């Protein structure tokens, strides 16, 4: 009897801390490493590089010499010297605008095909995941330099000159560049195929069965079931592709961020980051607008 009261007391003492607080404590312990890492490896460098972008930074043997210069770097990059940002940025943006839809459509198509049941599926799947392994590396750059990226028929049918004659040069040159490395565009779609393939698994097969019983044609099934079901993954892929393209280390603008001039490089990196945010914002806006429009169409 006495023993029991003792344990009761123990339990009672433990319960002084409310359960919600212990839960929060446990959660904090799990989240703590990541949060510490975020503060040290992300927030501090972010803040410091923002600070540096307003300074003239010189690394000397004795230490770092910092003199405030205000908006000088920003003015220099954005107004005085077009070489650093604009000459690289606009062709790149146009190229990205062409590349992103191609990557998305291609990876959606491949993912839907790979989801079918057919002989040799495993074999093709393992080939199609190869890009995931290589695209991050130096190897792709080697291929790009080798000219392994183009498709043969471009030279054969002289498509370049046709495009050049019929299109504004500002749009013709990025289009030609994309076509010239079309294969590489496909190489960039590895992770996107993965995401679509995983996303396709979330649409339950009973929906397809019901549609079949109701006599829907496969064409209708694709437009009315598969595509609406994939919308969240299309958005996810859109974000992933944008971020991936914009932060690729071989990206022409980012290669200019060097340790040669800390202040100016920081300013450039920040301008570029803001551009990425704006671009993502536009993507989101367009996407929500498109979704609203299609939603209205469906309601009619």
């Amino acid at each position, binding site marked *: 009897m006495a023993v029991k009261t003792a344990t009761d007391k123990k339990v009672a003492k433990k319960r002084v801390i409310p359960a919600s607080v212990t839960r*929060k404590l446990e*959660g904090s312990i799990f989240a703590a490493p*990541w949060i510490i890492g*975020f503060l040290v490896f992300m927030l*501090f460098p972010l803040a410091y590089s923002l600070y540096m972008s307003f300074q003239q930074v010189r690394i000397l043997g004795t230490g770092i010499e910092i003199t405030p210069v205000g908006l000088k770097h920003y003015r220099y990059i954005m107004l005085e010297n077009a070489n650093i940002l604009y000459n690289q940025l606009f062709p790149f943006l146009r190229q990205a605008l062409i590349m992103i839809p191609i990557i998305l459509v291609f990876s959606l198509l491949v993912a839907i095909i790979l989801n079918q049941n057919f002989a040799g599926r*495993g074999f093709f799947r393992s080939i199609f995941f190869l890009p995931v392994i290589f695209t991050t590396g130096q190897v792709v750059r*080697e291929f790009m330099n080798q000219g392994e990226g183009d498709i043969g028929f471009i030279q054969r049918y002289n498509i370049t000159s046709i495009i050049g004659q019929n299109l504004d040069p500002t749009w013709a040159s990025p289009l030609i560049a994309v076509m010239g490395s079309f294969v590489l565009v496909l190489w960039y779609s590895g992770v996107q195929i993965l995401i679509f393939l995983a996303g396709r*698994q979330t649409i339950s097969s009973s929906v397809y069965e019901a549609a079949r019983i109701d006599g829907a044609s496969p064409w209708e099934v694709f437009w009315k079931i598969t595509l609406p079901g994939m919308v969240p993954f299309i958005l996810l892929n859109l974000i992933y592709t944008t971020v991936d393209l914009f*932060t690729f280390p071989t990206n022409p603008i980012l290669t200019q961020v060097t340790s040669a001039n800390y202040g100016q490089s920081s300013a450039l*990196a920040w301008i570029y980051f803001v551009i990425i945010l704006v671009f993502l914002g536009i993507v989101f806006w367009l996407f929500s607008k498109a979704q609203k429009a299609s939603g209205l169409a469906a309601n009619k």
Partner: protein
Amino acid sequence: MTRLITAIKDKRVDQINWRLGLTKARYLILGKEADKGLLFRAFIYLVLIDVAYIYLNPILFMIVTMVKDSADLLDPSVIWVPRTIYLGVLQDAWEKLRYPKQFSISLMLSLGVAVLQTISCAVAGYAFARLEFPFKRFWMFCLLLTFIVPIQVTILPNLIAASQLGLMRTYWPIVLPALFGHGLKGALFVIIYRQFFSTQPKELEEAAKIDGANVFKIFYKVMLPLAKPAILVVFLFSFVWTWNDYYLPSMYLNGVKDVPLSLGISQISAMLSQQAAEFGPSIFDEPLKMATAFLIILPPMILYAFTQRWFVEGVERTGLVE
């Protein structure tokens, strides 16, 4: 009367037979559900083989170019099948890369980062998926922010910090963030784990809790064993991406003698273009580059060959997204 009826019946049967034949033929060519017909099959295989060719072409080209000797290289009629298999270039690349040395550095670095990220991102992902902590929504926003911040925005302060702490030309600046669930694409891995854990049924944890397990035990004994597909996907991604990454090593390991393979290959290609500028290009430049590229992708290829079955399955089961 009865004769008339049988006649009509016969005619009907005839019609039905004729129709049956037609439908059968249609099913064979177009398929019952349009994704099972011959025509569609042929189309699918056409697309698949085309794309597979596109993906395999550079790799095959790389291997073929690598084993050509000088006669084959100069002969434009030799494209895909070299007359002799010449391994001298490969050997040259092996020595120039100091392969055994650089290979072991790459292996240690990638393994270290991959193991650390696999563990630390799982912990963070579990916290984001299932646990409560103060300002969770704010930290979630920070996670997404981490995902979209280009590495170049934070690299310069990190460089300064590393040099102030005397960590330049060591591997610490690359490995240390991985310990905290950051580092190369760390945010993506946390997101993958978060998605995975949030799709798991809550009943398992509740049952374990009723059995008296604390949160650490639940994570270690219940959730981690469940997360095998996610662990495999994250580990493979992390390993391969660290293996291929040359940006971080080129920033932190400037001027170090023993570098990982990814940096070694870019040093060789820089050296080759310098030589080409001085003495004119050599026919062996391209095969040498291809040979170094081959040597660097060979280990991840082998790793992928062994794990791809689980990897493909894992990707589907992780629900990577949702």
